[in-house]
């Protein structure tokens, strides 16, 4: 690895028009041919810094040098011309276009004279380099996320990028896809590419990068060589040591006096809107004081199963029992009244972004706050919400703020606060910590544990195996709509689970 800096950013400041500081004077340097990590929590300024480097955002102050020459980007085009490419967290592919159309579109900005037929040749060439083959006639949205990401990388390479920026690339990937992505990145490094890798996951930093820049609250805290620090040290730098005194909940787990079955799913099948059977004859049980972790790659029937339990989707076969009562034919509201609670995987589904905290807080429990005339007692709502905000440590300027202005972590806390305040007996929760920073993740996981310890049941759906292992008392794996294995986490090592997830 040469020690020649290929990118230097000096004194970068970004102040948004509303006066908010995103970056407070950042110096950043990347060497040619290295994999350089940028580590930081949500809101630390990682993505902003990279979007400045990619010409998407103009810095308020500061200078940028590429290969020693000062540059001033007025848009991504300029950055692309300097050989800088960005692979977004949310891909910049057009879903309804074919792979060829997408590649052609992006190549047009480089070379106006290029023909559609030329694309095949170039795509094959770069595809071989990273070991990736794809039929260019496929429509992008029909492809798995992992493949879409590879197309995105391919696209960036085809545009002549020598410096690749990846923004939280694994947040949408399965463990297997992550492994494949890392292979590609290492291959690129061997071919002399420079890679900037943004993440908040310590393990990825340790496993992949050569050097890492750690950011916190718009500042660079430290730049270190990765193999000279431990994960724990990285975590401390990222969070700030003064805040890293987090106590795990002290609630003693009640000894299970008797094992009571809260939920029983008997041979349930669910057909989705397109008529495809997404859940196939699933048998599952959840007991009180238990977290059942349902592992699997997203899109294998988890959502349909969760919605079938919540009553949002009808089952096509089978019965569902809740505390011994057959609830198969009850509607959502009746099931919620019995004590079932559902937190869907996307926060946009659980919250209405353009409504404020108060309104969102009572969405699932309107009846509790209505008098006989169906008028909502807002004073009582606010009182309860204030308590919840305090208890769940939801950070907001005001209760009247639209929830879209809350951070992801605070949104998730609000959802959980709302569901907890209904005092459910069974919580179905899907990807509860997806996209959250470390502190929020710890907090949410702790809440789930407390909930379990108070003698209630949790169905935890997660594609994050670490999360499954950290929380679950029992693990089940779902694959193409079937439960392929259930068991005790101690007897099921991750490799085995990985195998069942992948087959």
């Amino acid at each position, binding site marked *: 690895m040469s020690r020649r800096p290929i990118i230097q950013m000096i004194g970068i400041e970004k102040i948004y028009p509303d006066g908010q500081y995103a970056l407070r004077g950042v110096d950043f340097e990347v060497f040619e041919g290295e994999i350089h990590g940028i580590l930081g929590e949500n809101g630390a300024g990682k993505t902003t810094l990279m979007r400045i480097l990619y010409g998407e*955002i103009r810095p308020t102050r500061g200078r940028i040098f590429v290969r020693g020459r000062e540059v001033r980007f007025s848009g991504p085009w300029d950055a692309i011309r300097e050989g800088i490419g960005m692979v977004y967290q949310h891909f*910049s592919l*057009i879903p309804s276009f074919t792979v060829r159309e997408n590649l052609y579109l992006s190549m047009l*900005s480089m070379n106006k004279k290029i023909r559609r037929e030329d694309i095949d040749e170039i795509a094959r060439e770069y595809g071989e380099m990273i070991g990736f083959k794809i039929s260019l006639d496929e429509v992008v949205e029909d492809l798995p996320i992992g493949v879409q990401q590879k197309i995105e990388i391919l696209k960036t390479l085809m545009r002549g990028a020598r410096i690749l920026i990846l923004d939280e690339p694994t947040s949408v990937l399965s463990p297997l896809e992550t492994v494949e992505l890392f292979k590609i990145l290492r291959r690129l490094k061997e071919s002399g590419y420079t890679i900037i890798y943004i993440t908040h996951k310590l393990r990825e930093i340790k496993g992949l990068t050569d050097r890492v820049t750690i950011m916190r609250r718009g500042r660079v805290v430290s730049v270190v060589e990765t193999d000279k620090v431990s994960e724990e040290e990285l975590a401390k730098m990222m969070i700030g040591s003064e805040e890293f005194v987090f106590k795990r909940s002290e609630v003693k787990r009640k000894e299970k006096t008797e094992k009571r079955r809260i939920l029983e799913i008997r041979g349930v099948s669910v057909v989705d809107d397109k008529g495809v059977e997404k859940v196939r004859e699933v048998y599952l049980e959840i007991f009180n004081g238990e977290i059942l972790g349902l592992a699997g790659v997203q899109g294998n029937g988890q959502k349909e199963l969760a919605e079938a339990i919540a009553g949002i989707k009808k089952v096509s076969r089978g019965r569902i029992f809740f505390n011994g009562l057959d609830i198969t034919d009850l509607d959502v509201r009746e099931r919620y009244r019995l004590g079932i609670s559902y937190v869907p995987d996307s926060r946009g589904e659980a919250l209405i972004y353009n409504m404020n905290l108060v309104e969102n807080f009572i969405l699932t429990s309107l009846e509790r706050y209505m008098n006989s005339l169906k008028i909502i007692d807002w004073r009582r709502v606010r009182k309860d919400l204030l308590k919840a905000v305090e208890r769940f440590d939801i950070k907001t300027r005001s209760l009247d703020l639209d929830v879209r202005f809350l951070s992801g972590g605070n949104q998730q806390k609000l959802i959980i606060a709302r569901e907890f305040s209904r005092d459910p007996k069974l919580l179905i929760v899907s990807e509860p910590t997806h996209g959250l920073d470390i502190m929020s993740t710890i907090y949410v996981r702790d809440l789930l544990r407390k909930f379990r310890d108070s003698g209630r049941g949790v169905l935890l759906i997660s594609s994050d195996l670490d999360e499954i292992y950290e929380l679950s008392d029992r693990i089940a794996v779902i694959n193409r709509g079937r439960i392929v294995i259930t068991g005790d986490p101690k007897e099921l090592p991750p490799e085995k689970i990985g195998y069942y997830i992948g087959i």
Partner: protein
Amino acid sequence: MISDIIVVSSLALTSMTPILLGSVGEIFTEKSGVVNIGIEGIFLLSALISLIITFVTEDPYLGLFTGFLIGAFAGFIHAVFAVYLKSDQIIVGVGFNMLAYGATVLMMVSIWQAHGASPTLPTKTYVISIPLGRDVITIHPLSIMAIGLAILFWWILEKTSLGLKIRACGEDPKSAEASGVNVYLMRIIATTVGGGLAGLGGAFLTVSWIGQFTRNISAGRGFIALANVAFSNWNPLTAILGALIFGIFDVLALYVPIKLSSLYGIVFTTQNNLFLTIPYLATIIIVMIISRRIKMPRSLGTPYIKE
């Protein structure tokens, strides 16, 4: 019977023309992500102004060209509202339609002191006449040209890089921008050109077809063109078929009562209005049937806001 079919077809070809031009223009516009429901207003404005130009210059082709320019200008104004000012495109369109209606009536009254209709043009554009038994069927070259334009715009959208860029803006402007497409520029171009096509359709109404301007001459054809956009599933080729169907219903509204009265000697007076509802009823029914399978551009009608 056969002569009926031929006559209706040739008439339908004429009444299809503005609908087709409007539809193709709107498809082009909407593929870029802008919705312009001001087609009706463009029809009215360019119908009147192209007529005035033809009166002054005695050149109907200059009139047609002016119609195109008027439409393009209206499209451009709409694009400025939609793209730069991020206005609600539906409201801008509604406002434009109302403005166009009022303005054309006002102009008609102040120029000709006429409240219902303008004088008739001495010269319209060239018409191909083919004698057929007792009837003479007439075909406007612009009708053929409209079909040609539909094919051309299909080709532009599907086969050229400009078309790809425009479609990208309508599907996912953010990704398009990231791919190096100038979203604003594409939307401006598509909306301006699309408006121009509609303007040509409006000019056709007066300069080629009817020869005079009457109050609300477009009579909802702009909205039928919008319905045809959905009917055609945003495909200019299918839009030809759709426009023809709508054109046939348009003709039937006039032809059926005349035929009935000539066959059975029934004289329709106020009942005539019932027949006039045929094209609109047909529009509603057709849109109801097809609205289940439509696949519109995903970012249609949403302004693209850069950070």
